[in-house]
């Protein structure tokens, strides 16, 4: 379980990191926490000639909250997300999700940037980012651009990020609402069999806005507009939630794997989506 040999680079600023990516092209790959990349390299499923370690780039770190505007540096770890009081107040769903990722050791080093850039449908943060309508900032040789989380994913391990781009940070508007991330897994530390994020806003007794997204139920995260639409304007009564769950199930296409056959996954998804909606509504 030893990876193929590579050259190691540890740039101290973004420009140097981008220059190294530019120089070595698709032979180079950045490493953040390494807890998705290193297992792949040990299995020799990823052969990489040049590893560019982002750990010393200060500009990629930190959490900034300015009113409702939240910015999270790509190199912020899950552990740091969990411990941040301002973030827990602004968007409690981030903490709730991060606590359901892997285990303490993995959360100390695994980063939010690595989690969303990886493109593994099992990663939990991408669906949450879609639920929050977050925007990713990508820096490349010709400057920076922004891509909505809802547009970023194209398939398993395929995203709109170019090989020579580095994800520098994530931003979103923390506009409140009742929030919940529900996840079914085989054991603690496992990736989701099914997981769902829900954010619902309440105006009087009716739902004024709803955003629902799902993890590991297709080969990319799924934001279900139809599920949200089914709830807006209703009082989230049982029949309304039934309709939203049905709509969400209409937007997924789970694959059979060692977490179960398709029928089982659809069954678990139905339960998890319902729980996320009920929990978010109870908190709205």
């Amino acid at each position, binding site marked *: *379980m*030893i*990876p*193929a*040999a*590579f*050259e*190691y680079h*540890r740039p101290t600023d973004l420009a140097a990191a981008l220059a190294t990516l530019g120089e070595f092209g698709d032979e180079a790959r950045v*490493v953040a926490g*390494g*807890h998705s990349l*290193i*297992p792949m*390299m*040990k299995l020799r499923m990823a052969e990489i000639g040049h*590893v560019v*370690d982002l*750990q010393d780039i200060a500009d990629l770190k930190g959490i900034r909250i300015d009113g409702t505007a939240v910015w999270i540096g790509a190199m912020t770890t899950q*552990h740091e997300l969990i411990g941040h009081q301002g973030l827990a107040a602004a968007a409690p769903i981030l903490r709730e999700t991060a606590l359901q990722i*892997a*285990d*303490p*050791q*993995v959360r*100390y*080093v695994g980063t939010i940037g690595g989690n969303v850039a990886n493109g593994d449908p099992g990663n939990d943060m991408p669906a949450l980012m879609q639920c929050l309508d977050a925007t990713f900032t990508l820096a490349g040789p010709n400057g920076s651009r922004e891509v909505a989380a809802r547009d970023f994913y194209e398939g398993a391990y395929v995203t709109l990020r170019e090989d020579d781009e580095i994800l520098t940070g994530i931003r979103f508007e923390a506009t409140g609402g009742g929030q919940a991330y529900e996840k079914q897994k085989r054991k*603690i*530390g496992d990736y989701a069999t099914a997981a769902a994020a829900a954010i619902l806003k309440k105006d009087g007794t009716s739902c004024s806005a709803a955003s629902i997204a799902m993890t590991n139920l297709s080969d990319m995260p799924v934001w279900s507009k139809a599920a949200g639409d089914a709830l807006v304007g209703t009082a989230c009564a049982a029949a309304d939630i039934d309709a939203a769950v049905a709509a969400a199930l209409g937007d997924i296409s789970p694959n059979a794997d060692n977490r179960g056959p398709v029928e089982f996954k659809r069954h678990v998804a139905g339960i998890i989506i319902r729980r996320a909606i009920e929990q978010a509504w109870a908190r709205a």
Partner: protein
Amino acid sequence: MSKMHLKLTVNGEAHELLAEPRELLIHVIRERLNLTGPHIGCETSHCGACTVDMNGRSVKSCTVFAAQANGAEITTIEGIGAPGALHPLQEAFREHHGLQCGFCTPGMITRAYRFLQENPSPSEAEVRMGMAGNLCRCTGYQNIVKAILSAAAEMNTVKEAAE
């Protein structure tokens, strides 16, 4: 590929060595520094037997490249206690039968050591969450949790007495 010059501080002692960047930290610790306390269980980032403390965080050293650890401060089980001068966690694991074969124990104690610094008076549920990255095939965890709770109480008593 070229070797790189690594500097590590392990259990308070400075080490310098040449290593290939791809070498895993657990191999550097066990095979070059001859610190065989941290074990290799799964080698796939799941079991926590290889846990060491790196820059104040518990990490699975089978999933860290030697190169990433360059400049780091590392503590292994050898730096936590010694025969004749056991750490309260080690005493508590012995007292409460927190081990049977002992394979998982260095990782368990190294993780618990960091966990109790972050949360000196945990509940049982918090211990279970905090130790979720370490697997044991023997004990059924019950006595590990007991040992950690007991060590926490003992460490708090000692701290209070010192104040």
